[in-house]
């Protein structure tokens, strides 16, 4: 769910804003957050980004290793150069490619802290509360949409808790 949420947010942003990611095309970028042992691979093909876990033994073009704080900083728009200078981030491969991916993170407005907390499951109750609020709003507007809202929201909650409207609002 964590990977899917990041993948959806990045692609949504690329589509909505027509961002050119040609320089990333055909790249496989590995990103390792060492203190939480989180490893992600970003595969860029045909102006799409895939976030994958397993590369079938294919080598990444660029390896990025960083700690959790630096990872969070990337999504908050902290200067990539500053992170490199502070030695919080280690890059093997093209720095330009790594920078373009980091720029996408910064533009995406993903609430990465929220996602990481969802990763541990402690935000489920919080999301349930928000879901009920939204259903109340929907029912006030339209009785028919209440049932649809109920189905959609519980679908989201049950199968993809990280894919929620509050997240989409932040990504758009």
């Amino acid at each position: 769910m964590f990977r899917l949420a990041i993948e959806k947010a990045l692609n949504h942003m690329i589509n909505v804003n027509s961002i050119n990611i040609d320089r990333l095309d055909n790249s496989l970028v590995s990103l390792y957050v060492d203190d939480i042992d989180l490893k992600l691979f970003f595969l860029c093909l045909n102006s799409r980004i895939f976030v994958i876990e397993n590369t079938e033994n294919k080598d990444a073009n660029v390896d990025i290793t960083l700690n959790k704080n630096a990872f969070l900083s990337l999504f908050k728009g902290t200067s990539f150069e500053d992170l490199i200078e502070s030695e919080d981030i280690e890059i093997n491969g093209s720095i330009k490619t790594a920078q373009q991916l980091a720029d996408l993170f910064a533009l995406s407005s993903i609430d990465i802290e929220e996602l990481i907390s969802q990763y541990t499951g402690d935000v489920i109750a919080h999301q349930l509360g928000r879901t009920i609020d939204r259903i109340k709003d929907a029912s006030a507007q339209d009785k028919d949409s209440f049932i649809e809202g109920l189905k959609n929201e519980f679908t989201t909650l049950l199968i993809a808790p990280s894919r929620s409207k509050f997240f989409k609002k932040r990504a758009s």
Partner: protein
Amino acid sequence: MDKTTHFGYKQVDVEKKQGLVKGVFDSVAGKYDLMNDVMSMGTHRLWKNYTISSSNVSEGDQVLDIAGGTGDLAIKFRKKVGESGKVILSDINGSMLNEGRKNLLNHGIIDVDFVQANAESLPFEDNTFDCVSIAFGLRNVTNKDIALQQMHRVLKKGGTLLILEFSKVENEMLKKIYDLYSFNVIPKFGEFFASDEDSYQYLAESIRKHPDQETLKSMTLDAGFGFCEYHNLTGGIVALHKAIKT
């Protein structure tokens, strides 16, 4: 060379399987959606929503839904691709396509194309689609390797294949409950709701004969896909394999 294959737990001649599967789906087409809701207690909608969510399909994309049956995935894909995109619903079975056509019309959708086609010989040019999906259809295909190669062929570079299919349950306790339910309850539901116990007995058997998660992943990579990952849903009762053409 082995010229037999499985049809549920029975061994049948390879050339006969397609006709036998056709018989099953001709029989169940009219009650297909109802039976899906009954058998899965509605959970198939969640699995399909997750599939759509994983697809990365966006406005303007070309999508092929193989074994699309009554069209529930095609309806959702059509919403995502918009008017500038295209969705093609294909199925080998004419009865299922007719149900799909009715269902889409009931949803006010008139611009999805319907193609009666065998997944083993897709009538589309190379590198045509951004996404190919097959939900609960691959296990009925006789030559799965050939079908996967065809799906790879018609996808564009960077295109995504989504295979939603029954798979292997991981938890032993859940497996026992699931087996009991599949072999004792589902055929009875089939008899009660669709007057067809045999077809639903086949369903339960065909699920057990379908490759498990890792085997299907290997088959997908062997078909030419650069990457393939799967996600178990509901404890592995169903798995979504997502493969990328590189």
